[in-house]
């Protein structure tokens, strides 16, 4: 039993990110409210960011800014210092920007949908859409397929 606990403790960062990912994924699939879906997508993205950053972590490591790298004594950079892995930080910096961009576009789309249908609930929007365009509904499409 303690062996299992040791495994969980050694990799607890993965458990945290998997839990966060499940919360975000469930919100994306099950919630009808479009804003809640976007919040779920953001939680999902944050889980991925945490996963990458935790992969770069080194025990006892400091931030990847060279100690003694500033000023006149730049040549005397300390070599015995342990730095955390800088590569995941760079990748996630790019990913955060993409995440912000996609969130902005998604929120703008939700604003347009609200202006058009007066609601951000998925089922209300689909019902209004079926009323506007009967050929859009599942039932009519199946029926039309049989006729042709």
């Amino acid at each position, binding site marked *: 039993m303690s062996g299992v606990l040791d495994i969980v403790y050694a990799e607890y960062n993965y458990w945290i990110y998997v839990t966060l*990912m*499940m919360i975000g*994924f469930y919100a994306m699939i099950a919630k009808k409210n479009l804003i809640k879906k976007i919040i779920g997508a953001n939680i999902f993205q944050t889980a991925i960011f945490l996963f990458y950053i935790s992969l770069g972590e080194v025990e006892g490591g400091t931030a990847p800014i*060279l100690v003694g790298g500033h000023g006149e004594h730049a040549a005397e950079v300390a070599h015995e210092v342990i730095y955390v*892995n800088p*590569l995941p930080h760079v990748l996630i910096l790019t990913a955060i920007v993409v995440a912000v961009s996609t969130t902005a*576009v998604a929120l703008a789309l939700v*604003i347009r949908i609200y202006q058009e249908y007066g609601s951000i609930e998925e089922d209300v929007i689909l019902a209004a859409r079926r009323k506007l365009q009967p050929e859009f509904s599942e039932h009519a499409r199946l029926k039309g397929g049989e006729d042709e």
Partner: protein
Amino acid sequence: MKTLALFVVILAGAMLIYAGQDLPAFGDINSPAYQHRMTQYFIENSLSESGVPNIVTALLANYRGYDTLGETTVIFTAGMAVILLLRRREK
């Protein structure tokens, strides 16, 4: 519908936990990603090659400069999409 969603989510989580058992432990200095020579190269040579003490900045703006240029394209495209979606329409 909610039960199906819960099932899919728990299945995905269980698969990730299962796959995560092979990943290196948290803070492990012997992890392949840290011991790889690219990581060691950037930590040792980024100051002499780019003159920036912050390794993340050196990587982002120097070694991955084209990636950052593409990133600005992403922001520009997103901004244009938001403007096109939200501008006032004349009827």
